[in-house]
């Protein structure tokens, strides 16, 4: 194909990606994120499928059959565990503001700068060849497409590629110094590329399967007819042993979690933990679909192009080209470009952050920490350098990859380099998983394990690739290093019979895990390591900064912290961050310093206020996003002037804070209980007091009521005694009055005793079936005389046919007499009085009413009239008629019968008293059959 056309399409496609990334950033700034959904998240994770998938799977399938599937089976098997493992990593990273796998391991093991650097070196050495591979894929696919084995060399194509990708990466990947800021543009671009490579590959697969052949069955039938291909149909025949399968699974499981680019898209760029739920099945589905056509294409290639000197890795392009479909080939090429470029971009971003944070910044921070006088300017300078160093790192990574490609990589097949890369990353597995679930893992263990694993990895897996003409002598492989046979890279310590990859993985993990566990157990961890172990392992139990153990004790003046942040984050972001902090912990900042924007740094009295430990922790995390955890800690330590806190110190703080938390919880609980008790007591006290006051009032009123007749009796008795010469008539009148007043006194006393008896609950009703009509007539007889005297018309309307009432006849009589005599008293003087007594049945009760046409009762008094000595409420005003006990005794009796009494009335409209008495007594059998006394229930007796 025309070279210019291909170039135009390549750059056109890259320009399209620029557009997509730009749009995403634009939308993100406008808060309408295109990226914050699980589909984009899952698609961006598919950056896992690189050019190696695109070209290499077919290549591998052509020679080794199904074994390529292992690399995709591992992640698929692993996916359900993401909710446990990946989510925990995401949570830790978000909380600690970690932005790379190096950050993660360094932070977990005491924020060790050395460990961060080591991880970075391993990553760079392990992954750069892998990037080189992608560059190779792009350039060689370009070569295949343009069929140019002469002229402009493949290496210059590769150089252009690397340059264009470096520009893209710097533009969209390294724009902000705070690495925790997400790269929405990059993520969307990567997601789009994932779609493009999937569609292109499916299109090609469909073309091969259904156009070149007659469907799946046809491809496989034709392949089965060729013996060389037929052996690929079975796992054993293809030469893939069980051990190798297992190794592939394990390697790909670790890679999908820990490869720098996977860590970048699945952890750092994660917007929402819940997106994992969808990604957990979308991602495996993606891998299933993209692998559907691998075998048909591989067989198709072997059948059509086999023996013509084509590299199986290029079948994907060669097949459409050979059959004259150059546009399809171009599209396929773009798919491959997608796969390779997305991998390069993301991997480079991840590596550049790591290199900058773990190799460059620790050196710089250490260099400038000594001179407090120049600190502020130094910080501002560092902030700038952080960004520049990251850009520099991008160029460096791509230059390294390009260099590797030029020097070594051109001869290597895609798959092998990729797997060696995987094996390098797999060295992180013990430190990461151990760090997440085992509090005992220490910095020393992780460092030693990683060093050993990395060394063995290099020896067993890398060394053999550089053996050959002009490089290392082949004798190393056959004789062992220095002629020692146990030092053969392919059979370390005499272990033979395993394939190259399994052998390397076995020994590297053997030493890695052994030293990690052994050294962790052998040497005690430092205080900081203990604290970080706690923070990582218990991340789901920790909720906020406030619950975190305060790791800072220095007396840092507040403006210093601000100046430090200012240097790295800029004024706007610093103010914003400190304001957010002040909102969360209003108590942690002195009040006058909360207005950050108006505050001049370093003014006199400000310098005196020390920063809260929580602020230091917060600042450390903010900086960790920029510099990595180790540098951030160093930097803050230099400002805080604090010693690295001692082991005992932190263990003390840890224990103390846990005990405090527990004690606090207990106290809170007890406080709540006490509060509840107090409330109850208060209520009871209030009730008691009210009762007491009622009792007092009652007593007071009783004595008052007694005094009145007593006064008459005493006065008249004295008059009689002092005046022996009284006229007979007058003497008799006085004597008669005395005896009437004495009777009144007696009545009053028995009423009071009655009431007291009812209230104390000692009364027992003597229930018998009573005919209400009988009782009403009898009661009416007792007041008839009085009524006649006052000219009151008394009407009784109580049918004799009413059901019998289970009641105490005497008490019922008392009720009726009380109501009737009240009615008589209420009736107006003169001849207009009228009283009506009615009774009628309701479903479960009898209803009785006594109605008069007297002066009525005001609404607000209709409840009070049933209180004893109702007039007591009115202090010195006396109720005109009655003792003030009648209605309350009446009410008591009705309630003893489990009935109700109430009044309907309006002033000057008369009053109508209602009594409702139940026909069936609750908690007892029909009383007609059981005349036993009714035991009183508690609530009846305690009501007053």
């Amino acid at each position, binding site marked *: 194909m025309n070279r210019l056309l291909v170039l135009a399409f390549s750059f056109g496609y890259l320009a399209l990606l620029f557009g997509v990334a730009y749009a995403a950033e634009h939308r993100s700034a406008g808060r309408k994120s295109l990226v914050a959904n699980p589909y984009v998240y899952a698609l961006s994770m598919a950056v896992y499928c690189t050019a190696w998938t695109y070209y290499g799977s077919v290549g591998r399938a052509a020679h080794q059959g199904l074994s390529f599937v292992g690399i995709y089976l591992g992640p698929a098997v692993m996916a359900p565990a993401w909710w446990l493992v990946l989510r925990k990593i995401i949570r830790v990273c978000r909380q600690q503001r970690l932005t790379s796998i190096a950050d993660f391991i360094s932070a977990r093991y005491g924020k060790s700068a050395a460990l961060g650097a080591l991880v970075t070196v391993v990553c760079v050495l392990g992954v750069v060849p892998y990037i080189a591979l992608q560059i190779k894929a792009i350039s060689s696919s370009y070569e295949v497409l343009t069929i140019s084995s002469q002229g402009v060399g493949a290496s210059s194509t590769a150089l252009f590629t690397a340059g264009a990708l470096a520009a893209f990466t710097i533009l969209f990947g390294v724009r902000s110094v705070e690495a925790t800021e997400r790269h929405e543009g990059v993520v969307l671009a990567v997601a789009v590329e994932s779609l493009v490579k999937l569609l292109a590959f499916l299109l090609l697969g469909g073309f091969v399967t259904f156009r070149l052949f007659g469907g799946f069955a046809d491809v496989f039938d034709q392949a089965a007819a060729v013996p060389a291909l037929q052996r690929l149909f079975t796992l054993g025949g293809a030469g893939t042993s069980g051990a190798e399968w297992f190794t592939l699974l394990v390697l790909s499981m670790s890679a999908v979690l820990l490869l720098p680019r996977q860590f970048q898209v699945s952890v750092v760029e994660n917007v929402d933990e819940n997106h994992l739920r969808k990604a957990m099945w979308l991602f495996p589905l993606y891998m299933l679909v993209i692998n559907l056509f691998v075998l048909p294409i591989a067989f198709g290639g072997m059948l059509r192009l086999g023996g013509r000197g084509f590299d199986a890795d290029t079948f994907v392009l060669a097949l459409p080209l050979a059959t004259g479909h150059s546009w399809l080939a171009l599209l396929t090429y773009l798919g491959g470009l997608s796969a390779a470029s997305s991998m390069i971009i993301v991997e480079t971003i991840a590596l550049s952050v790591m290199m900058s944070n773990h190799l460059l910044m620790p050196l710089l921070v250490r260099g400038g920490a000594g001179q407090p006088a120049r600190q502020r300017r130094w910080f501002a300078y560092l902030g700038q350098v952080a960004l520049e160093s990251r850009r520099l790192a991008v160029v460096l990574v791509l230059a390294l990859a390009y260099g590797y490609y030029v020097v070594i990589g051109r001869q290597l097949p895609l798959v092998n380099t990729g797997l060696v890369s995987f094996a390098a990353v797999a060295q992180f597995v013990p430190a990461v998983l151990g760090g997440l679930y085992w509090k005992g893992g220490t910095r020393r263990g992780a460092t030693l394990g990683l060093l050993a694993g990395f060394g063995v990895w290099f020896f067993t897996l890398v060394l053999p690739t550089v053996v050959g003409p002009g490089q290392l002598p082949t004798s190393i492989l056959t004789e062992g290093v220095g002629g020692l046979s146990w030092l053969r890279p392919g059979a370390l310590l005499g272990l033979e019979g395993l394939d190259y990859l399994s052998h390397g993985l076995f020994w590297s993990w053997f030493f890695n895990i052994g030293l990690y566990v052994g050294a962790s157990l052998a040497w005690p961890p430092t205080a900081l390591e203990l604290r970080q172990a706690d923070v990582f392992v218990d991340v789901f139990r920790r909720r906020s900064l406030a619950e975190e153990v305060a790791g800072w004790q220095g007396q840092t003046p507040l403006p210093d912290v601000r100046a430090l942040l200012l240097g790295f984050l800029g004024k706007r972001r610093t103010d914003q961050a400190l304001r957010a902090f002040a909102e969360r912990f209003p108590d942690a900042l002195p009040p006058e310093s909360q207005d950050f924007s108006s505050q001049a740094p370093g003014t006199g009295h400000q310098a005196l206020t020390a920063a809260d430990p929580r602020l230091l922790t917060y600042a450390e995390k903010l900086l960790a996003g920029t510099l990595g955890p180790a540098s951030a800690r160093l930097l803050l330590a230099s400002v805080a002037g604090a010693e690295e806190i001692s082991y005992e110190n932190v263990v003390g703080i840890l224990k103390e804070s846990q005990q405090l938390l527990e004690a606090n919880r207990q106290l809170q609980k007890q406080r709540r209980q006490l509060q509840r008790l107090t409330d109850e007591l208060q209520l009871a006290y209030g009730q008691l007091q009210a009762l007491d006051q009622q009792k007092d009032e009652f007593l*007071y009123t009783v*004595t*008052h*009521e007694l*005094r*009145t*007749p*007593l*006064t*008459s*009796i*005493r*006065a*008249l008795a*004295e*008059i009689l005694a*002092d*005046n022996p010469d009284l006229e007979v008539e*007058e003497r008799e009148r*006085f004597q008669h*009055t005395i005896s*009437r*007043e004495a009777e009144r006194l007696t009545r009053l006393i028995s009423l009071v005793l009655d009431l007291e008896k009812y209230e104390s609950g000692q009364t027992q009703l003597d229930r018998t079936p009573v005919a209400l009509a009988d009782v009403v007539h009898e009661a009416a007889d007792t007041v008839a005389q009085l009524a006649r005297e006052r000219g009151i018309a008394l009407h009784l309307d109580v049918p004799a046919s009413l059901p019998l009432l289970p009641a105490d006849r005497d008490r019922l009589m008392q009720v009726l007499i009380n109501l009737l005599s009240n009615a008589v008293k209420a009736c107006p003087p003169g001849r207009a009085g009228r009283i009506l007594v009615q009774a009628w049945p309701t479903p479960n009760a009898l209803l009785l009413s006594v109605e008069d046409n007297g002066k009525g009762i005001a609404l607000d008094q209709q409840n009070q009239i049933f209180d004893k000595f109702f007039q007591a409420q009115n*202090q*010195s*005003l*006396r*109720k*005109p008629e009655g003792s003030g006990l009648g209605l309350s005794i009446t009410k008591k009796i009705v309630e003893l019968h489990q009935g109700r009494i109430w009044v309907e009335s309006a002033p000057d409209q008369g009053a109508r008293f209602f009594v409702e008495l139940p026909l069936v007594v609750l908690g007892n059998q029909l009383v007609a059959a059981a005349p036993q006394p009714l035991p009183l229930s508690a609530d009846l007796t305690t009501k007053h």
Partner: protein
Amino acid sequence: MKTPHILLVDDEPNIVMSLEFLMRKNGYQVGIARNGTEALAAIHDTLYDLVLLDVMMPDVDGYQVCRQLRESPSCAQTKVIFLSAKSQPTDVQQGYAAGADLYIPKPFSTRQLMDKIRDLLSK
């Protein structure tokens, strides 16, 4: 010296009956009111030398009657004795605060009462 004029105020007929007998026996002139309203009217109409005043009455209570009496300049010389079944210290205090000359709790000794009345009238 003219016959002292005494007003009896009580809503209890038997007490009024006994008091009326005692006053007449001692040669005083007697006026009777059976509640607060009647008492106020009586005070307004006639100049009494002494008022025997009950506290608890259905309409206007004794304290109020006493206070109104004290506000009238014409009654400046009128003595007031409370006769009340309310006998708590606060009640007594309230009675004196209303302007009473004496507060006697019920039931009272007729002899002592007559002594006190004589004392008050001779002042």
